[in-house]
Protein backbone atom coordinates (compact mmCIF):
# COMPACT_ATOMS: atom_id res chain seq x y z
CA UNK A 1 0.00 0.00 0.00
CA UNK A 2 1.30 3.42 -0.94
CA UNK A 3 0.31 6.85 0.29
CA UNK A 4 0.49 10.04 -1.74
CA UNK A 5 0.72 13.08 0.50
CA UNK A 6 0.06 16.35 -1.27
CA UNK A 7 2.35 18.83 0.42
CA UNK A 8 3.41 22.02 -1.39
CA UNK A 9 1.19 23.87 -3.83
CA UNK A 10 2.53 24.72 -7.28
CA UNK A 11 2.79 28.52 -6.72
CA UNK A 12 4.61 27.95 -3.43
CA UNK A 13 7.17 25.74 -5.16
CA UNK A 14 7.72 28.14 -8.04
CA UNK A 15 8.15 31.12 -5.76
CA UNK A 16 10.44 29.19 -3.44
CA UNK A 17 12.81 28.21 -6.24
CA UNK A 18 12.66 31.59 -7.95
CA UNK A 19 13.52 33.23 -4.66
CA UNK A 20 16.67 31.18 -4.28
CA UNK A 21 18.71 32.67 -7.17
CA UNK A 22 17.21 36.13 -6.60
CA UNK A 23 18.24 36.21 -2.95
CA UNK A 24 21.67 34.88 -3.93
CA UNK A 25 22.12 37.72 -6.42
CA UNK A 26 20.89 40.27 -3.87
CA UNK A 27 23.35 39.05 -1.24
CA UNK A 28 26.25 38.81 -3.68
CA UNK A 29 25.67 42.30 -5.11
CA UNK A 30 25.11 43.54 -1.57
CA UNK A 31 28.59 42.37 -0.61
CA UNK A 32 30.01 44.15 -3.68
CA UNK A 33 28.45 47.35 -2.30
CA UNK A 34 29.36 46.73 1.32
CA UNK A 35 33.03 46.25 0.40
CA UNK A 36 33.34 49.96 -0.47
CA UNK A 37 32.77 50.86 3.19
CA UNK A 38 33.30 47.65 5.15
CA UNK A 39 33.25 49.07 8.65
CA UNK A 40 31.41 46.39 10.60
CA UNK A 41 33.00 43.93 12.96
CA UNK A 42 32.21 42.00 16.10
CA UNK A 43 34.09 43.43 19.04
CA UNK A 44 34.46 42.54 22.67
CA UNK A 45 35.81 45.61 24.40
CA UNK A 46 38.42 46.82 21.95
CA UNK A 47 39.35 43.43 20.57
CA UNK A 48 38.06 42.57 17.13
CA UNK A 49 36.69 39.02 17.16
CA UNK A 50 35.56 38.98 13.56
CA UNK A 51 35.85 41.55 10.80
CA UNK A 52 33.21 41.66 8.07
CA UNK A 53 34.85 40.49 5.92
CA UNK A 54 38.35 39.04 5.89
CA UNK A 55 40.52 39.83 2.85
CA UNK A 56 40.67 36.16 1.91
CA UNK A 57 36.88 36.05 1.70
CA UNK A 58 36.80 39.08 -0.61
CA UNK A 59 39.52 37.65 -2.81
CA UNK A 60 37.92 34.22 -3.08
CA UNK A 61 34.65 35.76 -4.28
CA UNK A 62 36.25 38.44 -6.49
CA UNK A 63 34.61 41.24 -4.52
CA UNK A 64 37.05 44.20 -4.48
CA UNK A 65 36.51 47.36 -6.59
CA UNK A 66 33.10 46.40 -7.94
CA UNK A 67 30.83 48.94 -6.25
CA UNK A 68 29.32 50.15 -9.54
CA UNK A 69 28.69 46.55 -10.61
CA UNK A 70 27.10 45.75 -7.28
CA UNK A 71 24.77 48.74 -7.33
CA UNK A 72 23.66 48.02 -10.90
CA UNK A 73 22.76 44.42 -10.07
CA UNK A 74 21.29 45.23 -6.65
CA UNK A 75 18.98 47.97 -7.93
CA UNK A 76 17.91 45.92 -10.94
CA UNK A 77 17.22 42.61 -9.24
CA UNK A 78 15.57 44.21 -6.20
CA UNK A 79 12.42 44.61 -8.29
CA UNK A 80 12.20 40.89 -9.05
CA UNK A 81 13.04 40.01 -5.46
CA UNK A 82 10.32 42.32 -4.14
CA UNK A 83 7.70 41.20 -6.67
CA UNK A 84 8.34 37.52 -5.92
CA UNK A 85 8.15 38.15 -2.17
CA UNK A 86 4.97 40.15 -2.54
CA UNK A 87 3.33 37.47 -4.70
CA UNK A 88 4.24 34.85 -2.12
CA UNK A 89 2.66 36.84 0.69
CA UNK A 90 -0.48 37.48 -1.37
CA UNK A 91 -0.75 33.85 -2.43
CA UNK A 92 -0.18 32.49 1.05
CA UNK A 93 -2.74 34.91 2.42
CA UNK A 94 -5.51 34.35 -0.12
CA UNK A 95 -5.09 30.61 -0.65
CA UNK A 96 -5.43 29.87 3.05
CA UNK A 97 -1.97 28.28 3.10
CA UNK A 98 -1.12 30.70 5.88
CA UNK A 99 -3.03 28.41 8.24
CA UNK A 100 -0.20 25.89 7.99
CA UNK A 101 2.46 28.57 8.20
CA UNK A 102 1.67 31.16 10.86
CA UNK A 103 2.66 29.98 14.35
CA UNK A 104 -0.31 29.10 16.56
CA UNK A 105 -0.59 29.01 20.34
CA UNK A 106 1.17 25.67 20.63
CA UNK A 107 4.01 26.55 18.29
CA UNK A 108 6.10 28.51 20.74
CA UNK A 109 6.19 25.69 23.27
CA UNK A 110 6.51 22.95 20.68
CA UNK A 111 9.35 24.64 18.82
CA UNK A 112 11.64 23.77 21.74
CA UNK A 113 10.63 20.16 21.54
CA UNK A 114 11.41 20.18 17.81
CA UNK A 115 14.82 21.69 18.43
CA UNK A 116 15.56 19.14 21.18
CA UNK A 117 14.44 16.38 18.84
CA UNK A 118 16.61 17.70 15.99
CA UNK A 119 19.63 17.87 18.24
CA UNK A 120 19.05 14.25 19.17
CA UNK A 121 18.26 15.02 22.81
CA UNK A 122 14.59 14.11 22.64
CA UNK A 123 13.40 11.00 20.86
CA UNK A 124 9.82 11.84 20.02
CA UNK A 125 9.03 14.72 17.68
CA UNK A 126 5.81 16.63 18.34
CA UNK A 127 2.99 15.90 15.87
CA UNK A 128 2.79 18.21 12.90
CA UNK A 129 0.75 19.09 9.86
CA UNK A 130 2.61 20.52 6.89
CA UNK A 131 5.20 22.31 8.98
CA UNK A 132 6.35 21.65 12.50
CA UNK A 133 6.38 24.36 15.15
CA UNK A 134 9.98 25.39 14.51
CA UNK A 135 9.31 25.61 10.79
CA UNK A 136 6.19 27.68 11.32
CA UNK A 137 8.16 30.17 13.37
CA UNK A 138 11.21 30.34 11.13
CA UNK A 139 9.28 30.45 7.83
CA UNK A 140 7.16 33.26 9.19
CA UNK A 141 10.12 35.17 10.57
CA UNK A 142 11.99 34.88 7.27
CA UNK A 143 9.12 36.67 5.51
CA UNK A 144 9.19 39.43 8.12
CA UNK A 145 12.94 39.63 7.61
CA UNK A 146 12.44 39.98 3.86
CA UNK A 147 10.05 42.83 4.55
CA UNK A 148 12.63 44.34 6.91
CA UNK A 149 15.29 44.15 4.22
CA UNK A 150 13.02 45.95 1.80
CA UNK A 151 12.18 48.70 4.29
CA UNK A 152 15.77 49.20 5.50
CA UNK A 153 16.92 48.99 1.87
CA UNK A 154 14.68 51.87 0.85
CA UNK A 155 15.80 53.77 3.96
CA UNK A 156 19.40 53.65 2.70
CA UNK A 157 18.55 54.05 -0.97
CA UNK A 158 16.23 57.09 -0.75
CA UNK A 159 16.89 58.73 2.62
CA UNK A 160 15.59 62.10 1.44
CA UNK A 161 12.52 61.33 -0.65
CA UNK A 162 11.55 58.53 1.75
CA UNK A 163 12.81 60.25 4.85
CA UNK A 164 10.03 58.81 7.02
CA UNK A 165 11.20 55.29 6.16
CA UNK A 166 14.74 56.22 7.20
CA UNK A 167 13.41 57.67 10.46
CA UNK A 168 11.48 54.45 11.02
CA UNK A 169 14.78 52.58 10.85
CA UNK A 170 16.39 54.93 13.37
CA UNK A 171 18.32 56.99 10.82
CA UNK A 172 20.63 56.42 7.89
CA UNK A 173 23.52 54.69 9.68
CA UNK A 174 21.17 52.52 11.68
CA UNK A 175 19.27 51.47 8.55
CA UNK A 176 22.53 50.30 7.00
CA UNK A 177 23.32 48.21 10.09
CA UNK A 178 19.82 46.69 10.11
CA UNK A 179 20.12 45.87 6.41
CA UNK A 180 23.49 44.23 7.03
CA UNK A 181 22.40 42.18 10.06
CA UNK A 182 19.33 40.93 8.22
CA UNK A 183 21.57 39.76 5.39
CA UNK A 184 23.78 37.85 7.81
CA UNK A 185 20.65 36.26 9.29
CA UNK A 186 19.50 35.23 5.80
CA UNK A 187 22.78 33.43 5.28
CA UNK A 188 22.50 31.71 8.67
CA UNK A 189 18.93 30.70 7.87
CA UNK A 190 20.13 29.28 4.59
CA UNK A 191 22.82 27.16 6.28
CA UNK A 192 20.41 25.70 8.85
CA UNK A 193 17.82 25.18 6.12
CA UNK A 194 20.26 23.17 3.98
CA UNK A 195 21.31 20.99 6.92
CA UNK A 196 17.66 20.30 7.79
CA UNK A 197 16.78 19.46 4.19
CA UNK A 198 19.65 16.99 3.98
CA UNK A 199 18.62 15.46 7.32
CA UNK A 200 14.98 15.20 6.31
CA UNK A 201 15.87 13.21 3.25
CA UNK A 202 14.80 12.63 -0.31
CA UNK A 203 11.02 12.38 0.06
CA UNK A 204 10.87 15.76 1.73
CA UNK A 205 13.11 17.38 -0.86
CA UNK A 206 11.19 15.83 -3.71
CA UNK A 207 7.96 17.31 -2.34
CA UNK A 208 9.45 20.80 -2.76
CA UNK A 209 9.96 20.04 -6.46
CA UNK A 210 7.02 17.82 -7.40
CA UNK A 211 4.55 18.79 -4.68
CA UNK A 212 3.85 15.42 -3.07
CA UNK A 213 5.51 12.73 -1.03
CA UNK A 214 5.23 9.06 -1.90
CA UNK A 215 5.25 6.79 1.12
CA UNK A 216 5.00 3.03 0.96
CA UNK A 217 3.74 1.07 3.95
CA UNK A 218 7.14 0.05 5.26
CA UNK A 219 8.51 3.58 5.52
CA UNK A 220 5.23 4.58 7.08
CA UNK A 221 6.39 3.86 10.61
CA UNK A 222 9.01 6.54 10.39
CA UNK A 223 6.84 9.62 10.36
CA UNK A 224 9.52 12.11 11.19
CA UNK A 225 10.37 14.48 8.43
CA UNK A 226 11.38 18.00 9.00
CA UNK A 227 13.12 20.52 6.91
Amino acid at each position, binding site marked *: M*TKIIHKHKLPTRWMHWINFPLLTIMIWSGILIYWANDVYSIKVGNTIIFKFFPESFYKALNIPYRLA*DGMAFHFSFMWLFMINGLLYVLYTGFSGEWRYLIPDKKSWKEAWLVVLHDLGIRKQAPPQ*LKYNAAQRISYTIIIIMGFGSMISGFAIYKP*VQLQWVTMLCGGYESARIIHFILTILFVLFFLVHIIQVIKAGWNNFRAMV*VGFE*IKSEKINKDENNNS
Partner: protein
Amino acid sequence: MKTIIVDETTEKRFRRRSIIAFIIFFTCIGVAWMSWKWLYNQPLDNSIRGGIQKPLRKVLDMNMDVYSGLYSTQHLVKEYPKSMAAPKARVNGNVGMDEDLFDTTSWKLTIIRAAGDTLLLTLNDLKKLHKIDVVHNFKCIEGWSQITWWSGVRFSEFAEKYKLTKECQMKFASLVTPDEEYYVGIDMPSMMHPQTILCFELNGKPLPMDQGYPLRLIIPVKYGVKNIKRIGTISFHNDRPADYWAERGYDYYTGL
Protein backbone atom coordinates in the same frame (compact mmCIF):
# COMPACT_ATOMS: atom_id res chain seq x y z
CA MET B 1 -2.64 18.50 3.34
CA LYS B 2 -4.46 15.86 1.39
CA THR B 3 -3.36 12.26 1.76
CA ILE B 4 -4.62 9.55 -0.57
CA ILE B 5 -4.01 5.84 -0.61
CA VAL B 6 -3.26 4.59 -4.09
CA ASP B 7 -2.95 1.29 -5.92
CA GLU B 8 0.05 0.27 -7.96
CA THR B 9 -1.03 1.80 -11.27
CA THR B 10 -1.84 5.15 -9.69
CA GLU B 11 1.46 5.07 -7.86
CA LYS B 12 3.19 4.55 -11.20
CA ARG B 13 1.35 7.57 -12.54
CA PHE B 14 2.56 9.66 -9.62
CA ARG B 15 6.11 8.43 -10.08
CA ARG B 16 5.94 9.46 -13.74
CA ARG B 17 4.59 12.85 -12.73
CA SER B 18 7.47 13.16 -10.34
CA ILE B 19 10.00 12.47 -13.11
CA ILE B 20 8.37 15.02 -15.41
CA ALA B 21 8.43 17.59 -12.61
CA PHE B 22 12.15 17.02 -12.14
CA ILE B 23 12.78 17.35 -15.87
CA ILE B 24 11.00 20.71 -15.78
CA PHE B 25 12.94 21.62 -12.64
CA PHE B 26 16.33 20.97 -14.20
CA THR B 27 15.29 22.64 -17.45
CA CYS B 28 14.40 25.75 -15.48
CA ILE B 29 17.75 25.67 -13.70
CA GLY B 30 19.43 25.44 -17.09
CA VAL B 31 17.40 28.32 -18.51
CA ALA B 32 18.07 30.43 -15.41
CA TRP B 33 21.79 29.75 -15.62
CA MET B 34 21.91 30.57 -19.32
CA SER B 35 19.93 33.77 -18.78
CA TRP B 36 22.39 34.79 -16.10
CA LYS B 37 25.34 34.08 -18.40
CA TRP B 38 23.62 36.00 -21.17
CA LEU B 39 23.07 39.02 -18.95
CA TYR B 40 26.54 38.87 -17.47
CA ASN B 41 28.18 38.76 -20.91
CA GLN B 42 26.13 41.52 -22.46
CA PRO B 43 28.20 44.33 -23.97
CA LEU B 44 29.04 47.07 -21.49
CA ASP B 45 27.45 50.47 -21.92
CA ASN B 46 30.84 52.10 -22.02
CA SER B 47 33.59 49.90 -23.33
CA ILE B 48 36.28 52.58 -23.32
CA ARG B 49 36.25 53.34 -19.64
CA GLY B 50 34.48 50.31 -18.26
CA GLY B 51 30.87 50.20 -17.34
CA ILE B 52 27.90 47.98 -16.73
CA GLN B 53 25.92 45.57 -18.87
CA LYS B 54 23.58 47.45 -21.21
CA PRO B 55 20.36 45.85 -19.89
CA LEU B 56 21.31 46.93 -16.36
CA ARG B 57 21.81 50.49 -17.57
CA LYS B 58 18.30 50.34 -18.97
CA VAL B 59 16.91 49.31 -15.58
CA LEU B 60 18.87 52.06 -13.82
CA ASP B 61 17.40 54.58 -16.26
CA MET B 62 13.94 53.18 -15.56
CA ASN B 63 14.66 53.55 -11.85
CA MET B 64 15.47 57.18 -12.54
CA ASP B 65 11.97 57.67 -13.94
CA VAL B 66 10.47 55.99 -10.90
CA TYR B 67 12.44 57.98 -8.36
CA SER B 68 12.29 61.33 -10.08
CA GLY B 69 8.54 60.77 -9.69
CA LEU B 70 9.05 60.56 -5.94
CA TYR B 71 11.20 63.69 -5.95
CA SER B 72 9.86 66.94 -4.63
CA THR B 73 11.61 70.20 -3.79
CA GLN B 74 9.38 70.17 -0.71
CA HIS B 75 11.29 67.16 0.62
CA LEU B 76 14.02 68.84 2.59
CA VAL B 77 17.17 67.12 3.74
CA LYS B 78 17.38 66.94 7.51
CA GLU B 79 19.58 69.65 8.99
CA TYR B 80 21.62 69.53 12.18
CA PRO B 81 22.98 72.10 14.63
CA LYS B 82 26.40 73.44 13.59
CA SER B 83 27.91 72.01 16.75
CA MET B 84 27.34 68.52 15.38
CA ALA B 85 29.34 69.14 12.21
CA ALA B 86 32.64 67.30 11.84
CA PRO B 87 35.61 69.63 12.53
CA LYS B 88 37.40 68.08 9.57
CA ALA B 89 35.33 67.06 6.58
CA ARG B 90 36.47 63.85 4.94
CA VAL B 91 38.28 64.25 1.63
CA ASN B 92 37.49 61.60 -0.94
CA GLY B 93 38.61 61.85 -4.54
CA ASN B 94 40.98 64.26 -6.22
CA VAL B 95 40.10 64.05 -9.90
CA GLY B 96 40.27 67.52 -11.42
CA MET B 97 41.99 68.89 -8.32
CA ASP B 98 45.58 69.15 -9.49
CA GLU B 99 46.83 72.22 -7.59
CA ASP B 100 49.93 72.78 -9.71
CA LEU B 101 47.80 73.34 -12.78
CA PHE B 102 45.32 75.64 -11.09
CA ASP B 103 45.71 79.38 -10.87
CA THR B 104 43.56 80.63 -7.98
CA THR B 105 43.99 84.29 -8.86
CA SER B 106 42.64 84.08 -12.39
CA TRP B 107 39.70 81.77 -11.57
CA LYS B 108 36.30 82.87 -12.70
CA LEU B 109 33.04 80.99 -12.78
CA THR B 110 31.98 80.57 -16.38
CA ILE B 111 28.27 80.29 -17.11
CA ILE B 112 27.47 79.31 -20.68
CA ARG B 113 24.01 80.64 -21.42
CA ALA B 114 24.16 79.77 -25.08
CA ALA B 115 26.90 79.19 -27.62
CA GLY B 116 29.00 82.36 -27.58
CA ASP B 117 27.04 83.90 -24.73
CA THR B 118 28.99 83.42 -21.54
CA LEU B 119 28.91 85.06 -18.19
CA LEU B 120 32.09 85.36 -16.12
CA LEU B 121 31.77 85.80 -12.38
CA THR B 122 34.21 86.23 -9.53
CA LEU B 123 33.84 84.85 -6.05
CA ASN B 124 33.02 88.34 -4.80
CA ASP B 125 30.09 88.54 -7.21
CA LEU B 126 28.69 85.40 -5.61
CA LYS B 127 29.34 86.59 -2.09
CA LYS B 128 27.06 89.57 -2.72
CA LEU B 129 24.11 87.19 -2.81
CA HIS B 130 22.29 85.95 0.27
CA LYS B 131 24.45 83.38 2.03
CA ILE B 132 22.88 80.32 3.65
CA ASP B 133 24.19 77.43 5.74
CA VAL B 134 23.56 73.78 5.01
CA VAL B 135 24.43 71.43 7.87
CA HIS B 136 23.49 67.97 6.69
CA ASN B 137 24.58 64.37 6.67
CA PHE B 138 26.79 64.25 3.58
CA LYS B 139 26.44 60.82 1.99
CA CYS B 140 29.07 59.12 -0.09
CA ILE B 141 28.11 56.53 -2.68
CA GLU B 142 30.63 54.22 -0.98
CA GLY B 143 28.36 54.00 2.02
CA TRP B 144 29.81 56.36 4.62
CA SER B 145 28.23 59.59 5.75
CA GLN B 146 29.30 62.57 7.80
CA ILE B 147 27.56 65.62 9.22
CA THR B 148 29.17 68.66 7.62
CA TRP B 149 28.56 72.39 7.62
CA TRP B 150 28.69 74.20 4.30
CA SER B 151 27.81 77.77 3.33
CA GLY B 152 27.13 79.45 0.03
CA VAL B 153 24.36 80.75 -2.18
CA ARG B 154 21.29 78.87 -3.29
CA PHE B 155 21.67 77.85 -6.91
CA SER B 156 18.01 78.67 -7.56
CA GLU B 157 18.46 82.18 -6.16
CA PHE B 158 21.67 82.63 -8.09
CA ALA B 159 19.91 81.57 -11.30
CA GLU B 160 17.15 84.05 -10.69
CA LYS B 161 19.54 86.88 -9.89
CA TYR B 162 21.55 86.30 -13.06
CA LYS B 163 18.45 85.80 -15.20
CA LEU B 164 19.05 82.17 -16.04
CA THR B 165 15.35 81.36 -15.86
CA LYS B 166 15.18 80.22 -19.46
CA GLU B 167 18.31 78.09 -19.13
CA CYS B 168 16.95 76.50 -15.98
CA GLN B 169 13.93 75.27 -17.85
CA MET B 170 16.18 72.87 -19.67
CA LYS B 171 16.46 69.33 -18.33
CA PHE B 172 20.06 69.14 -17.17
CA ALA B 173 22.95 71.20 -15.91
CA SER B 174 26.55 70.29 -16.66
CA LEU B 175 29.27 71.29 -14.20
CA VAL B 176 32.93 70.88 -15.10
CA THR B 177 36.22 71.54 -13.28
CA PRO B 178 38.56 74.19 -14.75
CA ASP B 179 40.87 71.45 -16.07
CA GLU B 180 37.87 69.50 -17.45
CA GLU B 181 39.03 66.35 -15.69
CA TYR B 182 35.91 65.95 -13.55
CA TYR B 183 32.40 66.64 -14.72
CA VAL B 184 28.87 65.92 -13.58
CA GLY B 185 25.45 66.07 -15.15
CA ILE B 186 22.54 66.86 -12.85
CA ASP B 187 18.82 66.95 -13.52
CA MET B 188 17.38 70.44 -13.20
CA PRO B 189 14.79 69.73 -10.47
CA SER B 190 17.64 68.64 -8.16
CA MET B 191 19.68 71.72 -9.08
CA MET B 192 16.73 73.93 -8.13
CA HIS B 193 16.28 72.26 -4.74
CA PRO B 194 16.35 74.90 -1.95
CA GLN B 195 19.33 73.19 -0.27
CA THR B 196 21.46 73.01 -3.42
CA ILE B 197 24.16 75.64 -3.01
CA LEU B 198 27.15 77.05 -4.82
CA CYS B 199 29.37 76.64 -1.81
CA PHE B 200 32.45 78.67 -0.84
CA GLU B 201 32.73 77.98 2.88
CA LEU B 202 33.29 74.93 5.05
CA ASN B 203 32.84 75.26 8.82
CA GLY B 204 32.55 79.03 8.39
CA LYS B 205 35.94 79.40 6.64
CA PRO B 206 36.88 79.57 2.95
CA LEU B 207 36.93 76.14 1.30
CA PRO B 208 40.26 74.37 1.67
CA MET B 209 42.06 73.55 -1.60
CA ASP B 210 41.26 69.84 -1.29
CA GLN B 211 37.57 70.60 -0.76
CA GLY B 212 37.41 72.48 -4.03
CA TYR B 213 38.53 76.05 -3.40
CA PRO B 214 37.20 78.49 -4.48
CA LEU B 215 33.73 77.16 -5.32
CA ARG B 216 32.07 73.76 -5.20
CA LEU B 217 28.58 72.37 -5.41
CA ILE B 218 26.75 71.06 -2.37
CA ILE B 219 23.69 69.16 -3.43
CA PRO B 220 22.28 67.19 -0.46
CA VAL B 221 19.71 65.34 -2.57
CA LYS B 222 22.57 63.52 -4.35
CA TYR B 223 25.47 61.33 -3.33
CA GLY B 224 28.87 62.95 -2.91
CA VAL B 225 29.92 62.10 -6.47
CA LYS B 226 27.62 64.82 -7.82
CA ASN B 227 28.88 67.42 -5.30
CA ILE B 228 31.59 68.55 -7.72
CA LYS B 229 34.61 70.34 -6.26
CA ARG B 230 36.14 73.41 -7.96
CA ILE B 231 33.49 74.40 -10.46
CA GLY B 232 34.90 75.95 -13.62
CA THR B 233 32.00 75.97 -16.02
CA ILE B 234 28.24 75.54 -15.78
CA SER B 235 26.13 74.94 -18.87
CA PHE B 236 22.57 73.85 -19.62
CA HIS B 237 21.29 71.02 -21.79
CA ASN B 238 18.25 69.01 -22.74
CA ASP B 239 20.26 65.88 -23.40
CA ARG B 240 22.22 64.28 -20.62
CA PRO B 241 25.61 65.91 -20.27
CA ALA B 242 28.68 63.74 -19.66
CA ASP B 243 29.10 62.45 -16.13
CA TYR B 244 32.42 61.15 -14.84
CA TRP B 245 31.10 58.32 -12.65
CA ALA B 246 28.17 57.38 -14.86
CA GLU B 247 30.79 56.67 -17.52
CA ARG B 248 32.36 54.27 -15.04
CA GLY B 249 29.23 52.24 -14.48
CA TYR B 250 27.42 54.23 -11.80
CA ASP B 251 23.80 55.29 -11.91
CA TYR B 252 23.38 58.66 -13.63
CA TYR B 253 20.66 59.91 -11.34
CA THR B 254 22.05 58.84 -7.93
CA GLY B 255 19.28 60.78 -6.20
CA LEU B 256 18.75 60.29 -2.52
